[in-house]
């Protein structure tokens, strides 16, 4: 295992153990709702469903359609803030 990968694993473990990951997740969710990202994506979902037919929609379909669009639709401010937080965490806890 490369040192980088090892490092990555350690960091992830730390994130989860300290509850930071959960906190970040909640923060992100709140911000996305606030900025209207969720509604936008839901509208997109409706289109997909209409396309595929209400009865035959599967999770995989949705995921495949939604995820790339979702990634693109995140506003810059939210992205910046989240990255900032992550970097702060890394700076604090990357030095073991």
């Amino acid at each position: 295992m490369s040192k980088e990968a090892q490092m990555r694993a350690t960091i992830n473990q730390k994130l989860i153990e300290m509850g930071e990951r959960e906190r970040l997740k909640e923060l992100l969710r709140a911000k996305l709702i606030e900025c209207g990202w969720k509604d936008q994506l839901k509208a997109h979902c409706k289109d997909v469903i209409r396309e595929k037919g209400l009865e035959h929609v599967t999770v995989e379909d949705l995921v495949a359609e939604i995820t790339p669009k979702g990634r693109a639709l995140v506003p810059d401010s939210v992205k910046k803030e989240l990255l900032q937080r992550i970097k702060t965490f890394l700076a604090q806890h990357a030095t073991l």
Partner: protein
Amino acid sequence: MKMEEMSLSGLDNSKLEAMAHEIYTDLIDDACLGLCFEVHRAVKCGYFLLDETDPESMKDFEIVDQPGVDIFGQVYNQWKNKECVCPNCNRSIAASRFAPHLEKCLGMGRNSSRIANRRIASSNNMNKSESDQEDNDDINDNDWSYGSEKKAKKRKSDKVFLHSLKQPGFVNPNSPRRSKSIKHKNGELSTGSSDPYKYTYNSGINYETLGPEELRSLLTTQCGVISEHTKKMCTRSLRCPQHTDEQRRTVRVFLLGPSASLPEPEPSVENDSYDPSENQALMSRLQWDGSSDISPSDSASSKTSTNNSESKKTKKKKPHLGLSSGSGSGSGSSQQGLGSSSTKKKKPKLLAPPTPSIYNDIN
């Protein structure tokens, strides 16, 4: 471990950034996945499309954005100018006033019973003490003024009336004088109006509407001092404590002419007893500030004081303090005495003679 530490410290920022970005992407994917599950479940459970409506209904409930109209399309003051016809008295009443009017008209509701009781009580009072017309004024006042119901209740419940003097010219329903009021004519007043819809506010008399004879007769029985705010004459007794005798004199001079006789039979009896103490008080007041605010009364009492000044010289020095302390307490009553004495006597000002005598006494 050391190797790891070295590698960690050796990590450049780009790698840290890459790691951070990876973590961020994971988080975003989690959010998207969460949404997908939510939508999928809604679809499968059948509640996904519930909040959709057909376009026709959407148009019906569209938000209105016109001026003069709220977002539902309703006009704001639609009912302001509308008039309703009262089924009881068949009068046309404004819509906003309709409910209170109906309450009074039908004789139901809390207020109407209260007002009726008060009217009965006051009419009883009127029958008991003649010409207690101020009560009627007060009823009309109570209809009109705010917070009057409290006073009316207090008036009924308290047998011992509290006499409060807070505002000049204010007719206090709790004043004991009202029950033993002096008979006086209120010829011009629109009192006793039993019409509940007319609100007349009369705390006094408008002197302009009265003739000289009526004025004279009024002034023999009433205080008559004209209030600054309402331009009306005070209807209280001649000894009303809200106004000084000086004010009463001024009003009489103003209304009846400078040669008017000043009818003050009652206070004159007390004047004789006031004279000596009032003069001493006057002297000490001159001593304190020598201010001109009591100069008109100075003129009246100064002549009498010159008579007393000689007697003052013979007094010892110690009583000076007694005088000054006495004046402090007596000045309140002396004011009245001063005013009343001045109404009796009209003399030119003689300020010079008394003052040197006082200073002689000090020395």
